[in-house]
C-alpha cells in the first residue's frame, strides 16, 4: 500500500519556492492499477517520481507497506528502488547494450543474482513480453512498441511489487498503445503487481485503471473509481478530459440540446444492464416517446457501460424514470 500523508514538493527557482505538488493525501492499494491523469505541468510527473524518491518531497511522509521511505538511508533507498520498477515515455534503454543485456542490467546492478539466475530470468521475461527472437538486437533496431516491451521486461527483472509508468504509451501509435496496455493489464493480474500510471489520455485510464486521480495545477482535484470519475465527472478539468477522450465538443453538444424538444435525460448503464433491451420496454409501458441525441457503448476496463442522452416527449415521465432507476440505470436530468 502506498500512502501519501500531506506530501508536497516545491522547487527553488531564483530563491523562490515554486510549488509542483501542493500537500496531498492519497492511498494506493496493493494490486490495483492507479491512474494519474493531468495536462503537462499539472504535477503528475513529480507525483510519480516521489514514489521512488527520484524526487525527494519537501514535506510530508510517504509510507509504502507501512515503512516511511522518506527516512531511508542511501543504501536502504537503493535496495527499496529495486522493488519498484519504472518505465518511461522515451523508454530510456541503454543504446550500448543488447535487449538481453538491458533486461539483465538491473539484476547485475543488484549484485545478488548468479549468472544462471540472470540468464534464466532474462529468457523468461523475453518470452513474457514476446521478444525472444530479438534478444541480441540493439534498441535502435526495434520499433517503439518493442522498445517499451523491453522497458517493461527490464522493470520486472528484479520482481518488483510496484510498477511506475511515466507516460508509457504517449510516444506510441494507437495500435501499439493497445497492445502495451494489454500487456500491463496481464502483468497486473498475473503478478498482482501494483501499477501507478500517469498519462494525459483519459482513454488509457479507461482501459486499464481501477482508480484514477485527476490533477490540475499541482493538486489532485478529483479521485475515485474510474467508472465513477469517468461517467460522472465533477471537476471541470475531469470533464474536459472525459469530453476530450470521447471527442465531444461541449459547445456543439449544448447547441444540439437546445434544438431538442421535451425533457432531456442522460442515462448511464453499467455492467449487465448495458445489454438489456430496456429502453423499448420502458417506453411502451410509460407511453413516452424518445429520440437519441447522443450515445456510446464501450468498456471501462472489463466492465461494459453505455451512456445515452435522450429527449423525451409525452407519456408518464415519472414512471419511466422510476422504471429505469429500478433497472439499475443512473438517470440524470439535464433539462
Amino acid at each position: 500500500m502506498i500512502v501519501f500523508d500531506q506530501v508536497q514538493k516545491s522547487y527553488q527557482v531564483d530563491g523562490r519556492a515554486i510549488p509542483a505538488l501542493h500537500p496531498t493525501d492519497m492511498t494506493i492499494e496493493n494490486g490495483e492499477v492507479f491512474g494519474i491523469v493531468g495536462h503537462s505541468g499539472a504535477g503528475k510527473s513529480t507525483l510519480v517520481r516521489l514514489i521512488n524518491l527520484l524526487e525527494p518531497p519537501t514535506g510530508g511522509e510517504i509510507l509504502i507497506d507501512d515503512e516511511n521511505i522518506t527516512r531511508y538511508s542511501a543504501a536502504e533507498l537503493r535496495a527499496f528502488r529495486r522493488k519498484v520498477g519504472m518505465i518511461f515515455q522515451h523508454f530510456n534503454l541503454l543504446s550500448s547494450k543488447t535487449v538481453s543485456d538491458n533486461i539483465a542490467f538491473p539484476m547485475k546492478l543488484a549484485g545478488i543474482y548468479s549468472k544462471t539466475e540472470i540468464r534464466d530470468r532474462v529468457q523468461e521475461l523475453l518470452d513474457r513480453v514476446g521478444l525472444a527472437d530479438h534478444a541480441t538486437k540493439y534498441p535502435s533496431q526495434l520499433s517503439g512498441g518493442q522498445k517499451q516491451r523491453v522497458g517493461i521486461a527490464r522493470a520486472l527483472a528484479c520482481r518488483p511489487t510496484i510498477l511506475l509508468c511515466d507516460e508509457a504509451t504517449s510516444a506510441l501509435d494507437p495500435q501499439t498503445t493497445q497492445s502495451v496496455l494489454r500487456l500491463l493489464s496481464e502483468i497486473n493480474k498475473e503478478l498482482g503487481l501494483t501499477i501507478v500510471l500517469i498519462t494525459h489520455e483519459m482513454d488509457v485510464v479507461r482501459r486499464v485503471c481501477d482508480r484514477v486521480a485527476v490533477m490540475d495545477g499541482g493538486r489532485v482535484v478529483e479521485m475515485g473509481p474510474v467508472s465513477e470519475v469517468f461517467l460522472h465527472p465533477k471537476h471541470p478539468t475531469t470533464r474536459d478530459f472525459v469530453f476530450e477522450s470521447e471527442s465531444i465538443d461541449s459547445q456543439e453538444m449544448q447547441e444540439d440540446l437546445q434544438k431538442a424538444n421535451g425533457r432531456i435525460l442522460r442515462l448511464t448503464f453499467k455492467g449487465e444492464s448495458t445489454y438489456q433491451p430496456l429502453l423499448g420496454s420502458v417506453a411502451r409501458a410509460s407511453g413516452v416517446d424518445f429520440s437519441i441525441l447522443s450515445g456510446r457503448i464501450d468498456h471501462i476496463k472489463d466492465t461494459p457501460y453505455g451512456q445515452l442522452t435522450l429527449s423525451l416527449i409525452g407519456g408518464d415521465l415519472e414512471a419511466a424514470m422510476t422504471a429505469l432507476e429500478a433497472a439499475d440505470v443512473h438517470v440524470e436530468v439535464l433539462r
Partner: protein
Amino acid sequence: MEALLSNVDWPEIGIASWDTLVMVGMSLLFSVLAGLPIGVLLFLTSKRQLLEQPLAYGVLSFVVNVLRSVPFIILLIVMIPFTVMLIGTSLGVAGAIPPLVAGGAPFFARLVETSLREVDRGIIEATQAMGANVRQIIFGALLPEALPGIIAGITVTAITLVSYAAMSGVIGGGGLGDLAIRFGYQRFQTDVMVITVALLVIFVQVLQMAGDRLVLYFSRK
C-alpha cells in the same frame, strides 16, 4: 629523384618517425588516463548533475581552462623546470612527454565532459530508478553510452598531440618536428621539410580513419 632528395637521410627519418610515434603514443596514453577521470568529475560536479558541487567544478574548470589557454609553445617552455624535476631532462622523447600530457589531458577532459553531456538524462534517471549507486551509474551507464563520443575525443586528442609533438622540436623534443626544424628550417633543406610534412599528413590520416572506424563500430544508435 636521387638529386631531388639529396639531403634526406632515410635512417634518420625512420628514427624520427618512431620517436614521434612514441611521443604521441605515450602522451596519448597518459592524457587519456588523466583526462578521463577529470572529464567525468567535471561532468558529475556540474550543475544539475549527480554530484553537483559548484566549488569543485569551479576549481577544476579553472585549472583546465588555464592549461588550455596557454599556447602550447609557451607551455613547453614553462614546463621545463617541472619536467626536469620529474624525469631528469627536458630534452628528447622522454622530455617532451610531460608537456604533451599537460596540453593533451585538459583538452581531452573537456571532450569527455561534452560527450557525457550528450548522454540522455533519461538513461541516468532510469539507472538511478533501478537502485544504482553513483559508481554503477558511471561505469554501467554513462561511460558505455558515451563510448563512441569518447573514442572520437581520443582521435581528436591524438591528432592534436601529433602537432604538439612536432612543436616540441623547438625545445629539442625529438621526432619529425625536430627534424623539420633543424634541417628543413634552419638549414633550408626543403626536401627534408617536404618529407616530414608528408609523413605527418599520412600519420594524421591513418589516425582519423582508425578513429572513425572505431566510433562506427561502437555506435549502436
